[in-house]
């Protein structure tokens, strides 16, 4: 049998002949979301080993950061996790602000919060939708995508871009919430809930969906912490940890929200955590919007920042809770107008390195389900 399998016609890479069949999945494969690649050894359909290979989208962002000024690097951060670019923008802005030692005015903080939570919803919608597609249920994906378009509309009103937003600036945000946001938000809240509801009805209690997700790739909390998991992945394992609560930034300590957690860390728990988080995000936006309305209309949006930003020498690390988990920026400054070293700590980098542990002994179909539930975004994985 093995002799017949020597060539791989579609994919590339070394081929081994032995008792196990080496199956190369990716970098171009429907479930690999662009540029991921896993080299698996399978015994029939069971996976004996799965070695992820990354770097197919390594664009040298960190090196680029060392050659651009602080403000110029902001648009580059969009291209990290392109599903929720705003979270990257705000994370970077906040890191530089920490380096400069300045506090952003409250109105800017609230606008950042609202936009970040919208981006979180958009990100989770893609993740859940793609998970459905990879398990064969295409229709929920379309319902969620329509909803995402509405969120994009708000982004477009606010800062003129759909996907790569480059929202705000170092020191605050440039523009107030758009006029139309005030009418749009109550409607949008209902439609987001409706889309989630439809997805929920189509998937959550579906017998096949339950069979495919419950108990698949279950992971225990100790291992997850040892592997450096953060975000929904860690929460699905039952650890109640969210940087919005643990190290509150912006004004997250003034709003009430729950941290949904799972129990077993399986695909179903990850799916449920993401679904519930969308609901929490809607709540956060509601409260942040109420706080926003209390502020006077001409409240400042920007802190005064010099045109050429030259932070003092020193090094800082600042992390926020992005949709995938802890997104941190380490910046070392040498006193010039360019950062001396920028290191990005992407959340899915740590998650994806545990991939072999996650899928060993499962079947090929589970590998696909697992990968989509991790929500690995190649842009921030390879940087």
């Amino acid at each position: 049998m093995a002799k017949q399998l020597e060539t791989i016609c579609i994919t590339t890479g070394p081929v081994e002949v032995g008792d196990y069949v080496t199956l190369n999945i990716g970098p171009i494969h429907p479930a690999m979301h662009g540029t991921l690649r896993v080299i698996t050894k399978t015994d029939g359909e069971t996976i004996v080993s799965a070695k992820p290979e990354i770097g197919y989208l390594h664009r040298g962002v960190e090196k680029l950061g060392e050659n651009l000024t602080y403000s110029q690097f902001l648009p580059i951060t969009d291209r990290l996790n392109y599903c929720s670019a705003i979270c990257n923008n705000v994370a970077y802005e906040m890191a530089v602000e920490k380096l400069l030692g300045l506090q952003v005015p409250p109105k800017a903080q609230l606008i950042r919060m609202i936009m970040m939570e919208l981006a979180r919803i958009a990100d989770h919608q893609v993740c859940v939708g793609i998970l459905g597609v990879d398990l064969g249920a295409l229709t929920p994906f379309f319902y969620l995508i329509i909803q995402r378009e509405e969120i994009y509309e708000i982004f477009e009103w606010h800062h003129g871009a759909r996907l790569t937003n480059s929202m705000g600036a170092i020191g605050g945000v440039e523009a107030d919430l758009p006029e139309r946001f005030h009418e749009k938000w109550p409607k949008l809240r209902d439609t987001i809930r409706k889309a989630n509801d439809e997805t929920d009805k189509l998937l959550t209690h579906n017998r096949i969906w339950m069979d495919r997700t419950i108990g698949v790739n279950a992971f225990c909390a100790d291992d997850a912490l040892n592997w450096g998991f953060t975000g929904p992945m860690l929460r699905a394992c039952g650890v109640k940890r969210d940087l919005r609560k643990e190290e509150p930034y912006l004004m997250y300590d003034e709003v009430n929200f729950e941290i949904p957690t799972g129990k077993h860390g399986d695909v179903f728990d990850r799916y449920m955590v993401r679904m519930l988080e969308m609901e929490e995000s809607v709540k956060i936006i509601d409260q942040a919007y109420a706080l926003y309305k209390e502020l006077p209309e001409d409240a400042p949006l920007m802190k005064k920042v010099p045109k050429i930003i030259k932070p003092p020498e020193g090094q800082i690390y600042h992390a926020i809770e992005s949709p995938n988990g802890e997104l941190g920026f380490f910046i070392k400054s040498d006193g010039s107008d360019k950062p001396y070293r920028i290191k990005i700590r992407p959340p899915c980098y740590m998650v994806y390195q545990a991939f072999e542990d996650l899928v060993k002994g499962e079947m090929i179909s589970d590998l696909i389900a697992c990968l989509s539930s991790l929500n690995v975004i190649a842009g921030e994985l390879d940087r």
Partner: protein
Amino acid sequence: MADWQIDLIKVVFIWVWALLIAVVMTWVERRASAMMQDRLGPNRAGPFGLLQPLADGIKLFTKEDIIPERARKILFILGPPLFALPAFSAYAVVPFGDKIVLGGKEIILQVSDVNIGFLYVLALGAIGVYGMVIGGWASNSKYSILGGLRATAQLISYEVPMGLALLTIVLLYGTFSLREIVLQQQGTFLGFLPNWGFFKQPLGFIIFMVAAYAEANRVPFDLPECESELVTGYHTEYGSMRLGLYLFGEYVNMGTLAAITVSLFFGGWGLPYVDMSRFLGPVSYGIASFFVFFLKQAFFLFLFVWVRWTVPRFRYDQLMGLGWKALIPLGLINLFITALLVQLTT
């Protein structure tokens, strides 16, 4: 007209009909899925995009034909026709109408009333599998062979429950001929229910339906293709019209299975409670019976599409588990009970 001429006309008619259903189904599938997903679907080729299948066909015909260097060439070429032709052939025993009187001659609307029609259908269904397996194996690609292996295991294990479900029908009606079975389903029983296989064998129908979805390679049982895992499964290496034949064969297969379902469980051409032959002329009765049959078939074809875009896909071991642990025991129990009832009542 001589008998052979009539037979020829019937053969051509059923062939065109099967082709048409498959062609229209590719359009229906795309438009219906678009409808369910708040989209429009193809609407540029012809009115409502009705000519979309034609455009696809022209494109596939004029596309470069690639046979991978390391493929087994003869088998690679043999695969797609081996998949599509048995599905066509199975139409031969489908009674697509009652009878029509033309020129004083009574014509049965069925190409051939074989007295073992049942076995013929099952046998052809089993041959169709070879098209996939050979295609998958001959491509010499790992995704293809995985698809082919899945096809083998899946389709062969689902033949068994399907056979068990069909056996209950045979027990019930005491014949292998499809036409006989349809004739026996006319009228009512227990006073109000149509005399359909569905009402007499609900469990058998469910088993048959599940097995039919598995036979037709449709979601939730489309594991040999499985777009998100095996790229496109057994036909990963196929392009141009060879691919066209595979895609086409799938729809022909669906058409056959829908026709068989209608004949066995839903009274074929007959309407419930109404005997059309009483108030219709001999010619119009023949045509009407064909349309009734067609409408019933169309419903089941749409059901295929409906399910396809609603549910997720099974995993391989769950699929086998469902086949061997649930459907086969159920089928056996159903067979036993039916045998007992038939023995007691006759």
